[in-house]
């Protein structure tokens, strides 16, 4: 019964956006992620590409689309850093897939759920990053869980304010 309900919600509540939004919002997230640390310095505790990935994955409710968006944004984010390309890609691929999978089953209109999801997926993304870097690749990396906690909180705060704004961009019948 719950599955039937979920499927019907999935069919009825898939959000649609203008085609430009799919290109401009992720690009804006990448640009701001690269530029804002120049303004806020070491207090750049956010991961905007992850926030955007989670938003579209929750809204579209399509694991494949969430996976692809997470992979593309993660790869571009890696390309801008000095690290190997693919670490953020793997982390955000998994996060996009999970967000879309959860979005099928929960009410994504609820702000509290979206914020909690952002917080949890941020920590998960950091954990996957650490796992891939240290254990999969065998590279040495100093790690600060406190910083990752700040980033997760930052993502949640940003999601709280930005998700309602992005909701206004969706197409309505």
């Amino acid at each position: 019964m719950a599955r039937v309900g979920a499927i019907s919600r999935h069919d009825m509540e898939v959000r649609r956006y203008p085609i430009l939004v799919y290109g401009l919002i992720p690009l804006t997230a990448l640009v701001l992620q690269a530029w804002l640390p120049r303004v806020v310095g070491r207090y750049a505790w956010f991961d905007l590409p992850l926030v955007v990935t989670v938003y579209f994955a929750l809204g579209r409710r399509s694991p494949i689309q969430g996976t692809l968006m997470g992979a593309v944004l993660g790869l571009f984010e890696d390309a801008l850093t000095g690290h190997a390309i693919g670490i953020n890609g793997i982390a955000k691929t998994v996060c996009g897939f999970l967000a879309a999978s959860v979005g099928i089953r929960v009410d994504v209109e609820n702000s509290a759920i979206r914020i909690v999801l952002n917080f949890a997926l941020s920590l998960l993304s950091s954990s996957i990053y650490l796992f891939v870097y240290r254990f999969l690749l065998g590279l040495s990396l100093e790690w600060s869980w406190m910083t990752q906690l700040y980033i997760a909180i930052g993502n949640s705060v940003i999601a709280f304010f930005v998700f309602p704004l992005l909701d206004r961009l969706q197409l309505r019948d």
Partner: protein
Amino acid sequence: MESFFARYRNYLVLLTILVAQMIGLAVQVRRTGSGRNTLGMQDGEGVRLIRLWATALVSPPERFIHSSRLLVLGLWQNYFDLRRTHAENQQLQQTIDRLRLEQAALLEDAKEGQRLESLMGFQQKYLYATQAAQVFGTGGSNLSRVFYIDKGSADKLERDMAVITPDGIVGKVREVFRHSAQVLAINDQNSGAGVILETTRIRGILRGNADGRLQIVDLLADKRIQPGEKVLTAGGDQIFPRGLPVGEVEKVVPDPDRDGFIEIMVKPAAHLDRLDEVLVITSMQPRFSPQEQNDLATSETLKGAEAAALDEQRKASTIMAERLPGLTDPNAPPKPVDPNAPQPSLLVVAPAKPLKPIHPDRFSPGAAPDAPTAAAAGDKPKAQAEKTSAPVSRTASQADSTAGSQPASGQSASQPDSEPKPQRNP
């Protein structure tokens, strides 16, 4: 089969993308000789292409935002804060507002001029060729401290060039594109620079930690290291020139992983979080100012004149030696040539030997005793005469002892000190 793919389509897509990225990662990681995994120092073509795409996509809007911010800030400072005053008393303050506006603009120009002047002054004072560049973006990750500058291969930038500010070193160029370059900051975990403590002269390796702070690692505990000591580049890494300021010792903490080792936390001299303009050292060849070049040319000219004068002097000596036959003994037997003997230099003039006198007396050359004896006797003729009549004397014993220190083949003719100096031309 079709239903299998339809049913597990999502998982299959996820798996495919994950495996593809893992393969891509495996290609980028290399194993060193010590058995440790590391990222390649230079990206492969495929990886570099992806970085190029990302930079080409992100850099233009990033630069636009950066320029817009500067523009807005300028407008805010120069116009909007004056507008309120303008509204309060538009009629009476019109002239003053205009002057204030101009003054603000001039002040801004002056500040910028001073800043650029100091930068240019440093650039000119600096001994190496540098290229000024502006920072317009970062890598966007706390785990990777990189930033982007608006100069690239079109401005002759290359990988591994040092990036500095007048305050201290900043990083090194990691990747170069056409009109931009990626710089790896010194507080990145993968960064490394050879440094030396100014007073204790202890060398170490500088790198960043997880929090983006600088630390010198792999150091044995040393009580001489105190907070406040200056840290300079050591110059051994072939990237940073020697003696550039890095920062100062903030605190010394024990290495948590190894007993007896310490880590030095360094406060950077440059403001790594707020970089605007930087200098890229494009050439390590010394570059001198026109004044210094002039001094060098003068020095070279003087050296040439001195060498010419010495040459002239040498020629004159040779001519004199040829034209003065009295300085050589035509009757002297030819000396046996020793093949092992060092070849005399052209500058060394052979010691002259006087001609035989027609009427020899006791003062004539050759009538004097051996050089050591003469030297011991104080070159007194009387002592020489006495020596010939008294075979055993104190002077003779001294002479023997002195002669013992001389070479056995030390003939008077071959010892300039023992020879009477030719005073005139015979």
